[in-house]
């Protein structure tokens, strides 16, 4: 079976005014099903551009991207939307919940854009909320929830269409350490027990320590790619990402 993500010499060039910005300069990487990958790098290193391409929100200037065996680099707007809807779950730093909808409605939002009808939508939404420990909060509006709870609602929303891959862009960036740990353990659990592939962008080595593999970006290229040896002790857990981080810097 092929890799879930197979990216070959991906480049992306933006035109900022008169200046061509080479955000990605030939990135090749494969990510296997069921891995938990952390992407690290300074701002401007190209990691966000890479995530946007992985998330089918944008198309590369050149190169190839096979997602689940499908070449997506030449799909049109609506075909990309379909892929995002069915195969990808997004988690954002600022949660991006719709303030006028309650938790359950937010979670069910992706079902609205499914091609097929989902008569069991409420059931699925409740199950997804229960999976992130918010079974009793389905009628609450985002403003009535804490940051950690809001991010959990966002995770439930990302999971509702049973995606192949979760793409998380600094999911703990707006949370305190306690809530961060809670969110990360949910990711870890999803990865371990359900085998969901997770690609996560972070600046924090603590967060990166939850991953199996750390990819470092600099100047639009991959400068480091190392597995994380999961140690038994917390103290050692910090050591691994630091090594990866040093490659980046």
């Amino acid at each position, binding site marked *: 079976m092929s890799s879930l993500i197979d990216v070959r010499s991906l480049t992306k060039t933006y035109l900022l005014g008169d200046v061509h910005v080479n955000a990605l300069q030939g990135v090749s990487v494969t990510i296997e099903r069921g891995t938990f990958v952390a992407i690290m790098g300074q701002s401007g290193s190209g990691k966000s551009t890479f995530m*946007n391409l992985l*998330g089918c*929100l*944008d198309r590369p200037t050149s190169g190839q991207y096979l997602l689940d065996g499908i070449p997506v680099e030449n799909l049109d*707007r*609506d075909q990309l*939307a*379909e892929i*995002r*809807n*069915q195969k990808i779950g*997004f988690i*954002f730093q600022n949660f*991006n919940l*719709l303030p*006028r909808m309650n938790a359950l409605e937010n979670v069910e*939002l*992706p079902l*609205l*854009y*499914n091609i097929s*009808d989902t008569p069991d939508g409420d059931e699925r939404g409740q199950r997804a909320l229960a999976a992130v420990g918010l079974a009793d909060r389905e009628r609450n509006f985002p403003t009535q929830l804490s940051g950690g709870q809001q991010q959990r609602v966002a995770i439930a*929303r990302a999971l509702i*269409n049973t995606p192949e891959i979760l793409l998380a862009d600094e999911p703990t960036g707006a949370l305190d350490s306690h809530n961060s740990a809670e969110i990360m353990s949910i990711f870890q659990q999803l990865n371990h027990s359900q085998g969901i592939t997770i690609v996560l962008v972070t600046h924090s080595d603590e967060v990166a320590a939850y991953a199996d593999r750390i990819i470092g970006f600099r100047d639009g290229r991959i400068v480091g790619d190392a597995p994380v040896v999961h140690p038994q002790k917390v103290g050692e857990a910090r050591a691994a990402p630091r090594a990866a981080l040093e490659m980046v810097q």
Partner: protein
Amino acid sequence: MKQLTSSIKIAFRALKMNKLRSALTMLGIVIGVASVIATVAIGSGATQRIQQQIASIGSNIIIVVPGSTSSSGVRLGSGNAVTLSEADARELAAQCPDVAIAAPLVRGGAQVVYGNNNWATSVYGVTPDYLTIRDFSVVDGAEFTQQDVDAANKVAVLGATPVANLFGGADPIGQTIRIKNVPFTVVGVLSPKGQSAQGQDQDDVILLPISTAKRKVLGVKQANADAVDTIMMQAQSGAQMPAAQDEAQALLRQRHHLQAADADDFSVRNMQEIFAAQEASSSIMAMMLAAVASVSLVVGGIGIMNIMLISVRERTREIGLRQALGAKTHDILTQFLVEAVALSVAGGVVGIILGISASAIISRLAGWATSVGPGAVLLAVFFSAVVGISFGYYPARKAAYLDPIEALRYE
């Protein structure tokens, strides 16, 4: 379907969020639709009134009156010659295939007396055909018959006005009235017709057999005992009116021994033409008013476009999120179109209610007839939806083609 109901739900939620803004935006449409409804109501009310007046005259009527005469160089108005006769009327009915009925008529005024009451009214000497042509019906008693005409019986059929003035509430049938001191037995009462287009009371009339009228009341013209004032004809159908007119003219010229160079000594008139012109001018007026009113609908549409553009801008992040979650171009397009249409149709419904009440108030205060048909209401709803779609399309399209990355990053 699921998409649409959810779009409608989203749209109404968004509109509720900004109640004042939505209400002000709707106001443009409300005013536009209300003024269209009210002007159409006034226009169609006027048209209906004219149609009623046409119906009260009778349908497909052609009137023949004698031409003008000149006496020692003084030209008299038309109708003063004594060129038309009862025989003309008979021949018109018999020989013109497009003429259904021709009824001779003599008329004059007379003082009518019953008991202590008296009343000045118009006296028409007619045949029973006249009632058919004028579409008069008898509500009480009976019409006089051809036998009454032939025998010159002293019977009278009264209009509603003389009945009211002479008899008060009493039953007139079988009573004897005196017209110019000649006793007549009342045999029937006509159903009321109301005012004519010219404002005349069409019920202020007494009908007598033409023979009796000439001999006992109005007098026989010395030049021609057979002379009549008017011949009223009814064409077989509305489409046959021009043909009937031509046939009547040709026959009368022949009967009156007119040479090709001679002018007609009579004139043939068609009431329909007068009314058709009135009807046309009133409907043109109504259309012009509606056109002016619909300008405000367009202004309302621009208001919707403006608000939708603001709304798209405010909700850029939401659009980006929906796109990330898999919303396709048409999903976003539909969502914003539904919102624009919801605004305009809601405004349209309020406008219809306002327009109907406004036309009711106008008809009460100004005394104009108004009529709001289901067609006008449907048209108003249709137009407000069209306004919503056409003015909502550009903002919705703008939303649908946002770049998801830019939209998600939008602050």
